[in-house]
């Protein structure tokens, strides 16, 4: 299941919903991405971030997230998957994204969850503007994200 929404979500409630009544599940792996209060690789080097705004491409976003989810379910035996991505204005500490995969086996749950976020990072049409003391700027895509996503190619 995929959801694109402005509102916050409750990871515990989503986890409970994903596993409810399914006793074939042996493990569930979940990743939650949050708004950090600094840009770049390290707090000491980065400018303070006061917030960000996530823009997306309605329609294409849902289409791409559904394709990523379908690919995960093709590659691994999964009992459930969930992708939630927010858009709009967010403050430091706010949740941005949740991906989760449930499976009979822990390794499949881990791999699928990792794959979901890596592919989402390079394929889902979202763009971040960071609001800093020095002004607003569009976040640039990172080559490292392409490298991480590339692990799952082929």
């Amino acid at each position, binding site marked *: 299941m995929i959801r694109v929404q402005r509102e916050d979500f409750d990871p515990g409630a989503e986890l409970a919903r994903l596993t409810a009544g399914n006793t074939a599940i042996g493990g569930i792996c979940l990743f939650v*991405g949050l708004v950090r209060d600094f840009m770049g690789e390290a707090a000491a080097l980065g400018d303070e971030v006061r917030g960000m705004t*996530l*823009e*997306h*491409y309605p*329609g*294409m976003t849902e*289409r*791409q997230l559904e394709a990523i989810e379908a690919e995960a379910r093709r590659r691994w035996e999964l009992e459930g998957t969930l992708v939630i*991505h927010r858009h709009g204005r967010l403050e430091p500490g706010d949740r*941005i*994204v949740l991906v989760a995969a449930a499976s009979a086996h822990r390794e499949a749950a881990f791999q699928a969850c990792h794959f979901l*976020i890596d592919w*989402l*990072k*390079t*394929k*889902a*049409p*979202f*763009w*971040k*503007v960071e609001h800093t003391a020095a002004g607003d700027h*569009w*976040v*640039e*895509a990172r080559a490292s994200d392409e490298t991480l996503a590339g692990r799952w190619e082929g």
Partner: protein
Amino acid sequence: MKVLYFAWLRSKVGIGEEEVAPPPEVSDLGALVAWLKTRSPGHAAALADMAVVRAAVNQDYAGLDHPVKAGDEVAFFPPVTGG
């Protein structure tokens, strides 16, 4: 044909969306980009370096040799930064 611009491309073009009717010889994305750049200095600036622009036709990623036709939804945007 509907053309959409996102993130800094929208800022440069000055609009997020427009209906265009390119001439019949504009049959692929590459030709569409060339034709759009003639529409305004903003268009020309946004589409100046296609190495930093991604494109989609009907909500799927597409290369510059991808065909385009009347009725398509075409989008231009920077590499994505969600998650």
